[in-house]
């Protein structure tokens, strides 16, 4: 009993630790990446006792210290309680969402089988959408409680945008759920280990390429980053919903955004790119389609799976950062038109087409 509880706590802490760390590292990668794309040197000012060599480590330490020791400013006419609660509401959903995303298959420790997933819910993906739907509150409440025209504009934009894209996001996943016939993410990840025509891994992207494009677009819109960064749009409304935030509270908004990127990447990986699956890797080792086999010990297989999951997640994090520094911002009407008149009908069509194909198969 105690050991089971301990294992659950350990898994939860591990995932929390990984997501938070990755969020911090992404903050650095974003600056370095933007510098790379804009052909300049970025984020090289943090030096500890004259030692600036390890830019990543220095920035990881210096950034939070700087933000946490800054003055925490609450607008005099703002709402003190909600102004303080809003960053928590923005930070909470992306962290708990990762609980149902599996990061590996079953790990056998002696007699004990540990499912490498924090919570195995039979409503799996619905839990993710319900938590994602709560992430609007951080923006709306933060914007309102600041008592600032710019932040209110950002909040209104943000809530409209997130509601619109939630629908497209939910509908685009329908196809995947129909193909694999389950809401459980671990089941979906397992089903992607099978082979099509005995050589192609049965990853979601091969069944649902349209759904992937729709889901990816909607996910980027949900993380409120360029080209969908209307809620903060620096050149129009200063910093939008978090214009009146400083210090630790701003850090929570900031880190929450990166945690959202990590969660979105985890979800894309799990739904469309096989999750923790390595092509041709079964539970006892590699079985290549040309007949060769390579047997591996159990621990190596599990490590490979967790490693593959991490690499895939990192790839999609990087893709989102690349997107953010490559594209210009959409206009508000364009965002709405894309969401309601293109993504939504396409997602519906995709559901219809998938249903027809499944019945006809």
């Amino acid at each position, binding site marked *: 009993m105690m050991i089971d509880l301990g294992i659950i706590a350990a898994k939860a802490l591990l995932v929390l630790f990984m997501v938070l760390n990755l969020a911090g590292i992404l903050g650095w990668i974003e600056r370095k990446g933007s510098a790379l794309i804009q052909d300049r040197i970025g984020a090289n000012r943090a030096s500890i006792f004259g030692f600036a060599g390890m830019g990543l480590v220095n920035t990881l330490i210096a950034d939070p210290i700087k933000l946490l020791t800054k003055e925490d400013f609450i607008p005099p006419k703002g*709402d003190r309680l909600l102004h303080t609660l809003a960053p928590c509401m923005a930070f909470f959903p992306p962290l708990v969402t990762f609980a149902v995303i599996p990061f590996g298959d079953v790990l056998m420790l002696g007699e004990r089988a540990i499912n490498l997933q924090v919570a195995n819910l039979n409503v799996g993906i*619905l839990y993710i*959408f319900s938590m994602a*739907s709560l992430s609007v*509150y951080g923006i*709306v409440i933060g914007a*309102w409680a600041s008592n600032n025209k710019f932040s209110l504009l950002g909040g209104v934009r943000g*809530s409209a945008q997130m509601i619109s894209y939630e629908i497209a996001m939910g509908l685009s996943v329908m196809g995947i759920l129909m193909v694999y016939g389950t809401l459980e993410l671990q089941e979906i990840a397992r089903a992607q280990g099978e082979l099509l025509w005995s050589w192609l891994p049965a990853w979601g992207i091969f069944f649902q390429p349209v759904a992937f494009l729709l889901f990816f677009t909607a996910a980027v819109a949900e993380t409120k980053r360029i080209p969908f960064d209307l809620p903060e749009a620096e050149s129009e409304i200063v910093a939008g919903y978090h214009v009146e935030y400083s210090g630790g509270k701003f850090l929570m908004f900031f880190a929450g955004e990166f945690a959202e990127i990590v969660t979105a990447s985890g979800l894309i990986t799990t739904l469309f790119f096989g999750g923790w699956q390595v092509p041709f890797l079964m539970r006892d080792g590699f079985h290549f389609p040309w007949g060769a086999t390579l047997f591996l010990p159990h621990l190596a297989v599990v490590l490979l799976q967790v490693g593959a999951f991490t690499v895939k997640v990192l790839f999609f994090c990087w893709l989102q950062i690349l997107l953010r520094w490559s594209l210009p911002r959409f206009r508000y009407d364009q965002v709405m038109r894309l969401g309601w008149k293109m993504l939504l009908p396409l997602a519906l069509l995709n559901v219809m087409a998938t249903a027809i194909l499944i019945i006809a198969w």
Partner: protein
Amino acid sequence: MTTPMIFFLILAGLSVAFSLLVVFQRNVVHSAMALVATLFLIAVLFLTLDAVMVGILQILVYAGAIMVLFLFVIMLLNPEVLEGRSVVWWVLGSLAALLLLFEFVPLLTGTAGPVSGPGPADGSFGSPEMLAQSLFSDFVLPFEVASVLLLVAIIGAVVLAKRES
């Protein structure tokens, strides 16, 4: 006192407290957020009853979608403080509350028939499969009628919005 009972009392107490806050707050946004908290707590109550699907849908639909629209409207209209209600509203409100109380009388006095204890919570209870099965076989007609009703409401809203401009 068993552990589930303690959990229930904490959750029920909190949800009653937050629903009282919804009514007694002067600030509309505070009321709305208290309502979000109430809905969230009710969802957790569903979870303790093994109805995971209903609990999650409660968060997804009520706390996550409908209340966001409420807040959206509140922010667009931005009413600073609610103006005082006229006597008519008080009378109507009290009448509605009394009516609701009468509905609850059989439940509270236990004359509505036996209130079942903990249900048969086997693995499939409250699962999405089971819910979908009953929704699309036994209750398919009410389900479709409800969706048509929603469609009518949407079209009505669009028509009203068009006529305004």
